[in-house]
């Protein structure tokens, strides 16, 4: 007798919990051969609003944690991903239609990305900060600080690596994130949310929404409580509109080239300059 597959109906990841979409909607995704594989939740603008609220609420804790501690936690994510790499490989193979070798390479690069950015956590302010010469009896320091709540539209493909490359630098800088996953290939992102939930990342620091990217983009862009946007995964045709809507609260909106760079961390940090009298 053949066993019947258990097809999963996935949920969102908001505030450290896994709720269904407030709207009750799901959508179907297929594997590379067009066969149905799962029903992820289709997030609504209210789920987005809840996610932003969760991200904002958890911001003081995350941005206030020591950089060293953040680095440890991001390293822990890498460890947890390593132990679940089999699951990620299966999902990437099924969705993207790539060979096992290619999928394995993608997950390995993703894990290395976490490790790479975890190392940057307590070094970025030493490298990008400065002691400034001023003409007066003052010390003058500039240090980069976290920007706030960052919306992330991760690259559509490679589904896992694109997400990790966008998310890790946002977290390394002490920001909290609201992620809209790849619309066609959301499964690795959903598994990543399960990894995050079990790896010391405080609830609400990362919130992961699956659904229709172009439906959520305008709400994210116009949300007054989102401070920055990574639009690497948005298609060019909605980019202009997104940039226009983001002007209302002067969002920092960036599209990044592929790959890792400390510039991706600094893109979502703001410089704070402190004057302190000498001799006190």
């Amino acid at each position, binding site marked *: 007798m053949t066993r019947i597959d258990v097809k999963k109906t996935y949920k969102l990841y908001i505030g450290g919990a896994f709720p269904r979409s407030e709207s009750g909607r799901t959508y179907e995704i297929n594997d590379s051969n067009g066969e149905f594989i799962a029903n992820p939740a289709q997030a609504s*603008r209210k789920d987005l*609003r809840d996610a*932003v609220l969760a991200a*904002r609420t958890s911001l003081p804790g995350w941005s206030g944690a020591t950089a060293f501690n953040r680095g440890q936690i991001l390293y822990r994510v890498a460890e947890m991903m390593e132990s679940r790499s089999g699951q990620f490989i299966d999902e990437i193979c099924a969705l993207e239609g790539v060979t096992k070798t290619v999928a394995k390479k993608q997950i390995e690069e993703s894990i290395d990305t976490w490790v790479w950015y975890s190392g940057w956590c307590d070094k970025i302010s030493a490298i990008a900060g400065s002691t400034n010469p001023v003409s007066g009896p003052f010390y003058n320091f500039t240090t980069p600080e976290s920007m706030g709540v960052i919306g992330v539209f991760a690259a559509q493909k490679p589904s896992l690596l694109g997400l990790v490359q966008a998310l890790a630098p946002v977290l390394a800088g002490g920001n909290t994130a609201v992620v809209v996953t790849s619309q066609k290939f959301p499964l690795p992102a959903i598994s990543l949310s399960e990894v995050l939930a079990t790896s010391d990342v405080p609830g609400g620091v990362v919130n992961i929404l699956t659904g229709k990217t172009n439906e959520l983009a305008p709400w994210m862009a116009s*949300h*007054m*409580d989102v401070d920055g946007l990574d639009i690497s995964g948005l298609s060019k045709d909605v980019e202009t509109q997104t940039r226009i*809507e983001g002007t*209302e*609260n002067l969002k920092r909106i960036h599209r990044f080239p592929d790959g890792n760079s400390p510039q991706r961390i600094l893109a979502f940090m703001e410089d704070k300059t402190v004057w302190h009298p000498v001799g006190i």
Partner: protein
Amino acid sequence: MEWVSDEVKVILFFKVSIYTLDMQLIDGSPQSIKSYLATLSPVDQVGAEARASMLATRSIKTTSKAWAIDCAISMIDLTTLEGSDTDGKVKAICNKAVRPDPTDPTVPHVGAICVYNDMVEVARKHLDSIGGKDIPVAAVSTGFPSGRASREVKKQDTLDALNAGATEIDMVIDRGAFLSGNLEKVFSEIVYIKELCGDRAHLKVILETGELVTLDNVRKASFLAMAAGADFIKTSTGKISPAATPPVVLVMLEAVRDFYAMTGVRIGVKPAGGIRNTKDAIKQLVLVNETAGPEWLTPKLFRIGASALLNDLLMQRMKLRDGHYQGPNYVTLD
């Protein structure tokens, strides 16, 4: 009168005659209180919870939501009851009471300011000086929040607030006395404070439902307060949890509805504590409309004791106006 249950009609038959004969439901003796409360029907707890959660599923959108938000803002008793309150903090919430959103003059002012009685004078003077003459100042009184003080202290507490210009007194009942069956003490204290208030102030009686344990007790305490002369019955001090849960508010609204059927007098209800966002506030308004009736949808008969709620209402109002989600950076800090 179709909305009054048969059970209530029977009570009504007796009660109306008692009330119209001597205009007093209870003469203050333990016996009269006991027999009066014995006529009350018990509360079906499961039913009350089910009805409250059913009413909480109503979806209020677009123009109705805009109306409900403005209605809720005008019903807020903007409250600050912290040991750390200062003149500056009280003045700041007064400013906010008069112009909740400084960028939008169409936002209505709130229902009242609610402070400790040593802050009443500051609040009154400041409100008068910034064009908030028609916003009343409410003072919490009678040994708030525990109510553990002598009659003499409670009297002075109330007089202090009245003399400083409070036109609403939020008194707490002695929950210990209520729970141990010393109902005449609770009753006589309310009567006493009501006499002190006279025509100078409205009396709101805080039941502190979180300490009354059962919904039956909530109904009993509501009727006791109303019979003793309360102008409003209020759920909680805001100092303990749970506070204004929907089933409790439902039971209190049923009590004022039944009391109105018996006596023709409309008593107000004030849920306080735990109402922090627009959704909660609109749920409260639905409860009022469906239980006591639309006549209660006015700041004269329904108030919401809150502080953080106002910012959320303002953010939702901006969202309806501007079409995008708001952030807490764009409303004033409390």
